């Protein structure tokens, strides 16, 4: 999934004001780099409880096989990355891990540049791994082969990286996505996308957030990206659930629900039992953005939140579920 681009900047002040409030409340811990934050304990408590809420909803969801829980680190192999079009579509967002692979002579040169404040980063070499741009990407290479009858549903979560430094506290460079991915036939993928779009909207409404479902597009890069955005909208492949955080005119996508058609099935040789390329779909919850929306709308102290929201998210209970 991709949580989409920000359109026009609503107001730089609105961003920095809210970020200041979050920082003073100890919810976010600035690093000095835009979009890179530590999270305070109360922030994490909300993330944890919202995740359990997703888990309860996923277990209660009917209409498909039970969700398999899988967790991948926020890195994927460069070889698998190379099977995707990400470098064509989102070159500006990617993150590649480079490391020092020289010997003593190269090390001397590296440290000489480092000591003199020169650019030493070009003395590093590409490693075998890339930062994960979406939580579902590491799944598909592991799913090569024939799916079982009725396909699969997979529950994923990882940190994902997008290089888009911003003052907007809701636009982080690294953040967590919780995803429920469907692999199956075209009909199964569409049913999953639509069911989770409706369920996600209901879940956020139950948290008393002013949420709307809108047709959206990913932030495809450059000249060709204009067409990719238009055709993604034309085919209604992506919906976002948006909630105002720093701006009412440009609400923030806190979740997105996407149809990938057979893109991943074709790229990674994932087939339905009748031999066709599998179709995939996902819902992705942006955990930091949902948490920020909750703090924005209900206040910076959880104790002040509406009782029904605290009850729904079980925030008054100390037990694990």
């Amino acid at each position, binding site marked *: 999934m991709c949580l989409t681009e920000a359109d026009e900047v609503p107001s730089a002040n609105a961003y920095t004001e809210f970020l200041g409030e979050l920082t003073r409340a100890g919810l976010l811990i600035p690093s000095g780099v835009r979009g890179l934050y530590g999270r305070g304990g109360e922030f994490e408590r909300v993330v944890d409880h919202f995740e359990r809420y997703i888990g309860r909803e996923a277990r209660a969801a009917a209409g498909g096989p039970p969700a398999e829980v899988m967790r991948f680190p926020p890195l994927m192999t460069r070889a698998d990355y190379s099977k995707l*079009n990400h470098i*064509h*579509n989102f070159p500006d967002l990617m993150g590649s891990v480079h490391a020092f692979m020289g010997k003593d002579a190269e090390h001397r040169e590296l440290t000489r540049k480092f000591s003199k404040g020169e650019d030493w980063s070009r003395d590093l070499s590409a490693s075998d791994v890339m930062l994960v741009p979406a939580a579902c990407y590491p799944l598909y290479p592991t799913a090569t082969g024939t799916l079982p009858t009725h396909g699969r549903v997979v529950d994923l979560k990882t940190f994902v990286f997008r290089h888009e430094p911003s003052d907007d506290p809701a636009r982080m460079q690294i953040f967590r996505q919780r995803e429920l991915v469907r692999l199956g036939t075209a009909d199964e993928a569409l049913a999953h996308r639509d069911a989770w779009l409706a369920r996600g909207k209901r879940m956020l409404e139950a948290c008393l957030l002013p949420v709307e479902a809108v047709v959206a597009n990913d932030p*495809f890069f450059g*000249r*060709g*990206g*204009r*067409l*990719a*955005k*238009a*055709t*993604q909208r*034309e*085919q209604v492949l992506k919906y976002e659930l948006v909630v105002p955080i720093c701006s009412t005119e440009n609400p923030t996508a806190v979740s997105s629900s996407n149809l990938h058609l057979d*893109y991943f099935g074709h790229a990674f040789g994932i087939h339905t039992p009748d031999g066709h390329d599998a179709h995939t779909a996902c819902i992705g919850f942006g955990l930091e953005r949902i948490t920020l929306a909750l703090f924005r709308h209900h206040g910076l102290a959880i104790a002040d939140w509406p009782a029904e929201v605290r009850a729904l998210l079980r925030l008054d209970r100390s037990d694990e579920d």
Partner: protein
Amino acid sequence: MSDRIALIRDIVLKHARIAADAAALTPTADLYTLGLSSMTTVHLMVALEDQFEVEFPDRMLGRKTFQSIQAMADAVEELQGG
């Protein structure tokens, strides 16, 4: 076959990555039925813009413009002022 149609046909064969033999690639054949994807449509658009020195305006950015060789030829003709 006009020069424009022939040129576009060559671009389609080079960029569209469709699973059809060249004989099936008539000017009016539906390229999406033949397997044209959104991603390869992007490659096609960029190649057409480079070849014909045009820029597709937003109103033309849709699958309909790239549905067939004829549709692309019509769009290019319009952008080149007939």
